[in-house]
């Protein structure tokens, strides 16, 4: 029945628009040159975005996503010591509220809803884009603080091309990477490999010990290894397909915090992701069908824990999505999609039967732009449903629903950009946001709370921008503010019998101001000077008081700095470049009553590089001088960060 309605609706739309102009709007035509052709790029009116260009990504080739985003975007990437779990703090919300989307699929673990930024090598990505704020209407649960899009781009040149990367740095850090691409006729493919080892045996002042001795960090060694295989097929002139497999493995020591005598904790990560898609475009429409399977496993051992830990947490997922876009007229585009996701986890603490969660959703968007390209609007809506805890064992592909289906909030979103005066734009967005609890929240035994409601709220933003582009200058600057009010915020608290359990107890209001300026001056054709800077002021407070003595009421959430600045000045010519990159991370409170805080810290990194061209090949030699001001700081309390250190890398391109 509903299928029939959709088909007839599409038919009506198609006939109505058939009379209109047949020239397809090329703004978002699926083409192999687009890095990340995702919904948020098309239906994104009123969204504050950031995008890494290929120059930046080459400079960060030996680093991870955590380094790129933490140093460049004005978000706070919280990590203990280098290479350990890195999660974002964006717009006053936490890692679980920021979605990372790889080629259209969320990478959030169903178990803890986190993505470890230090497990994603920048070398594997041809595009990194960040959309601040809510994308719940496009990507569903969890996309509250922001959405990060990652993707690969098929090689455009024919033949065999590639890059070999070799890096070496302070504290026993070494990187080896290679990517090798091939294109001929209907086939394009690439293999990537990245390997990183680091000892992280740096010294630091131990502020917890008598006499403030200089200690050497131990058990902070880590190993990260990844492989990726991409295959792109041009089946017909208008049909393309791709299959990509990505394997990541890591083995990391969990370094002791300053007050701990030692640590013998280790974490082993292993994940496999395979995704495929088929994209087709016709005169006035496009269709995408994509699928992803993943198997991720985190093993953690700590023989010195209160209760010796030897945990094995594994999750599987099968995600299918179909999307159909129709150019109704040159001014109107619509998008319809269906998503069917199923997750299963065999983590020790979830008990039996292993939880299986089926999460179907349906989403739709409309986009309008005025003939003079001065007004853009988008409207999106999404409805997701989720099954409750299964009472019997199910395979990942069950033949019936693995539990009763519950509908989550319907999420609408409306946004607009308006070129109201010369180069000035006004943008705004209003949307509902939500986050469905993670497997840990729901099923962890003991303590998991299957009766948790989704976090649910609204979010709005306004932004004034100035955009100018000519042969000499590219200026893009903006100032904006946002306001989010999220109810049923989930907090883990110790309950009766000392068992920690999550409850929907807080209401969080996050608001702030974000200022951004990107200015590029082209001195000559081969010579540029560039400044880009981002500042975020964030006020994220708890609006519910648990008891008369609860001093967390109206206080800033822990780990959310009020002030974050990231700024770069760079110069480049044909032979060399220099990038001076500074970050300021403001004071972050570490107790909910705001009585204790970690001091603000400044880091200054300088990137220097030279390019040597030999016929059709080139060699890039890059030096990263990190924490040049030798700041002694902690991003997480009692976890030391290294002082001045260096990383040298050579990239051979052919």
């Amino acid at each position, binding site marked *: 029945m509903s299928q029939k309605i959709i088909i007839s609706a599409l038919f009506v739309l198609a006939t109505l628009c058939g009379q209109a102009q047949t020239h397809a709007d090329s703004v978002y035509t699926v083409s192999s040159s687009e890095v990340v052709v995702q919904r948020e790029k098309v239906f994104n009116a009123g969204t504050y975005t950031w995008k890494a260009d290929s120059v930046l990504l080459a400079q960060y080739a030996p680093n991870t996503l955590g380094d790129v985003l933490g140093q460049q975007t004005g978000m706070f990437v919280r990590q203990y010591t280098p290479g350990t779990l890195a999660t974002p703090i964006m717009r006053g919300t936490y890692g679980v509220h920021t979605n990372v989307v790889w080629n259209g699929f969320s990478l959030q673990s169903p178990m803890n809803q986190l993505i470890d930024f230090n497990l994603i090598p920048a070398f594997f990505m041809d595009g990194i884009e960040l959309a601040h704020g809510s994308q719940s209407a496009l990507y569903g649960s969890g996309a509250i603080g922001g959405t990060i899009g990652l993707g690969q781009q098929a090689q455009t040149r024919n033949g065999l091309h590639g890059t070999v990367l070799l890096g070496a740095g302070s504290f026993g850090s070494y990187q080896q990477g290679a990517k090798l691409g091939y294109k001929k006729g209907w086939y394009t493919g690439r293999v990537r490999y990245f390997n990183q080892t680091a000892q992280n045996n740096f010294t630091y002042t131990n502020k*917890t010990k008598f006499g403030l001795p200089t200690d050497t960090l131990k058990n902070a060694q880590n190993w990260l290894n990844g492989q990726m295989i991409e295959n792109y097929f041009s089946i017909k002139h208008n049909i393309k397909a791709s299959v990509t497999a990505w394997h990541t493995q890591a083995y990391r020591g969990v370094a002791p915090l300053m007050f701990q*005598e030692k640590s013998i904790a280790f974490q082993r990560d292993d994940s496999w992701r395979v995704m495929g898609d088929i994209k087709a475009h016709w005169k006035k429409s496009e269709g995408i069908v994509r699928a992803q399977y993943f198997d991720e496993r985190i093993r953690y051992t700590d023989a010195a824990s209160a209760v010796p830990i030897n945990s094995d947490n594994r999750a599987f997922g099968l995600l299918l999505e179909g999307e159909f876009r129709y150019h109704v007229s040159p001014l109107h585009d619509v998008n319809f999609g269906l998503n069917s996701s199923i997750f299963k986890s065999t983590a020790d603490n979830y008990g039996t039967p292993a939880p299986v969660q089926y999460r179907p959703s349906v989403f739709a968007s409309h986009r309008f732009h005025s003939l003079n390209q001065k007004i853009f609007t988008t409207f999106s809506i999404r409805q997701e449903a989720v099954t409750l805890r299964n009472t019997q064992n199910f395979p990942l592909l069950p033949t019936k629903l693995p539990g009763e289906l519950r509908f989550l909030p319907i999420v609408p979103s409306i946004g607009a950009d308006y070129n109201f005066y010369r180069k000035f734009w006004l943008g705004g967005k209003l949307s509902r946001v939500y986050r469905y609890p993670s497997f840990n929240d729901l099923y962890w035994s003991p303590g998991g709370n299957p009766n948790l409601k989704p976090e649910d709220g609204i979010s709005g933003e306004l932004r004034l921008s100035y955009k100018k582009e000519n042969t000499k200058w590219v200026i893009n600057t903006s100032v904006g503010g946002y306001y989010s009010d999220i109810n049923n915020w989930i907090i883990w*608290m110790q309950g009766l*019998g000392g068992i920690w359990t999550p409850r929907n107890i807080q209401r969080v209001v996050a608001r702030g101001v974000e200022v951004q300026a990107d200015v590029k001056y082209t001195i000559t054709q081969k010579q540029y000077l560039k400044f880009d800077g981002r500042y975020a002021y964030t006020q994220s407070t708890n609006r519910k008081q*648990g*008891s008369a003595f609860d001093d*967390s009421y109206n206080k800033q959430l822990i780990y959310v700095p009020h002030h974050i600045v990231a700024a770069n000045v760079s110069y480049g010519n044909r032979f060399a470049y220099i990038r001076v990159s500074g970050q300021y991370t403001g004071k972050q409170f570490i107790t909910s009553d705001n*009585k*204790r805080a970690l001091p603000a810290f400044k880091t200054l990194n300088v990137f220097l590089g030279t390019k040597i061209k030999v016929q059709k090949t080139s060699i890039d030699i890059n030096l990263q001088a990190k924490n040049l001001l030798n700041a002694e700081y902690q991003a997480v309390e009692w976890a030391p960060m290294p002082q001045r250190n260096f990383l040298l890398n050579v990239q051979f391109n052919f």
Partner: protein
Amino acid sequence: MKNLNQIFKFNLLALVALSVVVLSSCKDEGGDPIEPSPSAYQGAFILNEGGFLKGNASIDFYSRGEAKLTQNLFSNINSRPLGDVFQSMYKANGNYYLVVNNSSKIEVVNAETFKSVGTISNLGSPRFMLVPSASNGSKAYVTDLFNNVIHVLSLTSHTQTKTIDLNGWSENMVEAGGNIYVNNWSNKKVYVIDPSADAVKDSIALTDYPNGIVVDANKKVWVSVDSTATTPAKLVRINPANNSIEGSIDFATGETVSKLAINGTGDKLYYLNNTGVFEVAISASTLPTTAKKTGSFYSMDVDPFDGSIYLGDAIDFNQNGTVTRIKTDGSETTFKVGIVPNGFFFNN
């Protein structure tokens, strides 16, 4: 005349000198506030365990008479943080021993000045300390969460001299009849240790985890035992003469018990359950149904010197907690303390 003048001058000088002596001796008598006499710490130490892996444990002191709170004693006097997860405290040989669980150490401070006199490190996961009376303050036992031992420390050298093998998670201890009674969670038993041999000599099996242990006026050992799916929580009385259970009072189904305490005269037991803090006479055969105070608390203990009940509330476990003191006359005071108040130590 000249003589008289000289005498006057001399007297004046003497007076000035004398007054200086008197004044300065007055100052001495007044005492330095940083180095209080032992009697200055008359009251309750509040043990704030802090957040796990946050390294923000602290110790506060609440004076019994003045009702005055002094915060962060250890870090203020010793200029460094106490550590991670402050678990328990013991007094012996003019020192306080502060057991800091997740820092694997015991901080030793002078009981008069609170100045650090040493750190006993590398203790695994220390929980509680006890000095067997027969050792005359020369050795201490320290229970451990995961190392399957009881550490034996020399209190003269402040080092670990040996260990007593004891499988599983050992918790709090008491001394009765010359033996040491140790709660052991993993094995759901109370073990009996002979301090002259440093060896386990007996054990008493229970239905579930023993989470509290005290000795009453009759020198009987009381143990609070948690509930399982099939057995209720209970208070168990052990006779140290034969190490057998001679009495037991069951809680209602679904009720919990924790933080067992006893008053100074050893005739009244106190505990926390689901709904609040309760008081029961050691002679009782049933449990009271009316709480002394209702609410959800993280810690509770009774001042043996004045009978006040101290209740700790950790609020959200991530901010300064509160302590409520209920005096025997029923009057209550609530004040803010450090992060996650998990216990108390009373001194007179």
